[in-house]
């Protein structure tokens, strides 16, 4: 089976004109502009199969949004090729647009002064969704996200999180096969994030949709994505299973243990991260994990011991800081 998304050697360079202040300089710049080349995306390659949920990670300005915009046809690549569902996105053919969706956490397209139901209806008309399919999908989503009492309120009276749920409903009413989600949970509280996450997972399951998602919240990525693609300075640093990312990049593991005598000094075994209620957390270099574990078990009275991978957040931080140094 061929991939839903396939990108090859994709690059996007911007010409940014360098402007100096002042009238003279700005008049001069009309005739003789100085340009700076910015490589937003610098030759990336990956494929995504049908039904995959992929986390797209990277610091601000890494090229995530630029890539999403090229995938949805808003930006034309400088070089390389993009293929989504057999279409070249840059043509923005209507058949293509009907099968995808782009959600940006900071944009809204709902009519501010009217209940979301009216915006949904407009969305139906825009995409030419058959009435019975529209009603079924709409009601299904409203139930999944528990929006029943909110859809009749004017959008301006909704909270940020409620509005975001409505945005997502509106963006998925045409049952797109491919979802590009750019920070869909930005600025929302934890409960709301969880709700939206669950909804995306459910949508993915029910419709076998392909999802590419960026998020600042690792919880989103951990809950939704088996596979992650890490991008930095426009290049791919890692592409593979989330667990492998942790394996490959984390330099330490976390040992958590309960001791019969909690007052022992453990600092010779590793870095003590926390110590409360008789439970100690140690940070130990990955290579020495088994060695230290054995030592701990033999030298101390241990009630319970667990070995955990480092939190993904930390790993990601580490990835970027390592590459920054390199």
């Amino acid at each position, binding site marked *: 089976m061929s991939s839903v998304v396939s990108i090859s050697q994709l690059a996007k360079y911007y010409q940014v004109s360098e402007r100096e*202040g*002042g*009238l003279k300089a*700005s008049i001069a710049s009309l005739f003789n502009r100085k340009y700076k080349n910015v490589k937003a995306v610098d030759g990336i390659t990956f494929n995504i199969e049908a039904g995959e949920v992929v986390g797209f990670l990277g610091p601000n300005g890494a090229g995530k949004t630029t890539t999403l915009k090229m995938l949805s046809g808003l930006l034309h690549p400088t070089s390389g090729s993009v293929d989504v569902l057999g279409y070249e996105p840059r043509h923005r053919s209507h058949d293509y647009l009907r099968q995808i969706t782009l959600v940006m956490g900071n944009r809204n397209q709902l009519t501010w002064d009217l209940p979301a139901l009216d915006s949904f209806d407009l969305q139906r008309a825009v995409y030419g969704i058959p009435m019975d399919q529209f009603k079924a999908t709409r009601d299904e989503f409203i139930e999944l996200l528990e929006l029943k009492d909110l859809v009749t309120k004017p959008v301006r009276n909704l909270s940020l999180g409620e509005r975001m749920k409505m945005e997502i409903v509106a963006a998925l009413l045409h049952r797109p096969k491919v979802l590009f989600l750019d920070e869909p949970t930005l600025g929302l509280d934890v409960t709301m994030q969880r709700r939206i996450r669950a909804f995306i997972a459910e949508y993915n399951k029910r419709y076998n949709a392909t999802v590419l998602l960026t998020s600042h919240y690792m919880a989103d990525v951990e809950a939704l994505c088996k596979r992650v693609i890490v991008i930095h300075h426009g290049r791919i640093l890692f592409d593979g299973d989330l667990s492998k990312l942790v394996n490959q990049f984390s330099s330490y593991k976390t040992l958590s243990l309960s001791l019969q005598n909690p007052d022992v000094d453990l600092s010779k075994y590793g870095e003590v991260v926390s110590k409360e209620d008789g439970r100690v957390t140690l940070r130990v270099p990955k290579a020495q994990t088994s060695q230290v574990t054995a030592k701990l078990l033999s030298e101390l009275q241990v009630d319970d011991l667990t070995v955990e991978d480092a939190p993904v957040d930390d790993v990601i931080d580490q990835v970027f800081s390592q590459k920054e140094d390199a």
Partner: protein
Amino acid sequence: MNTIKLAWTYMRIGMLNELQYRANFFIQLFQSAVAVGTGLIGLSLVFGQVDNLAGWSRGELLAVMGVHILMGGVIRSAIQPNMERLMNDVLNGTLDFALTKPADAQTLVSVREFRFWQLTDVVVGLVILVVAVTQLQAKMEALQIVAFVAALLMGAVLLYCVWLMVTSIAFWVIRVGDIVDLFQGLYAAGRWPVSVYPDWLRTGLTFLVPVAFAVTVPAEAMTNRLTGETMLFALGLTLLFVILARVVWLIGLRSYSGASA
């Protein structure tokens, strides 16, 4: 005195800020030129047909146009930007920042913005006025100029009061753009002396939106039409509006604090 110092500080900041964007000056100049051009075309169409309009000669109407442009510049540089900001603040709930400062709130919200380049219109208006007056070959007397400046000042204060009142009464139910449109529409009536208009409209332009005092009266000062009574009347009306605006502002402010509490 504190008030003047405060206003001056804001004005200076606004000025420095705008001086960075010198291209805006040329844009403004260009826009003034377009406005003057269309105004002149309007005048020439009228005087292609007649040699006076309701007793006003071509030169006199040019003077009215000069004052209209001049006062328009005053509104757009000092009054309108402040009122728009006030409306936006109320809309977004950011007015609290202004209310918590140790200064009279009305003063503060009235001096926070200053659009320096809009003063281009003041200069352009003055030039037209001078051209008009020279055409009329009227000899300028010192008293006349004093009366003109006084009338102009009172006119500006009157306009400010009306803006403030409407902003205070209506800002939480109405879109900002619409109030601006309303004022620009009504102010456009000042392009011609108010004596041209039918009674009901003239009354409206005198008492509801005092375009008459903002434009026609100063223009009268420059064309030897002004009487002492009119000046006294203008003074009385100005005082009345200042008090009225203050009262309305305080009521509006109370309802704002009540709503946000």
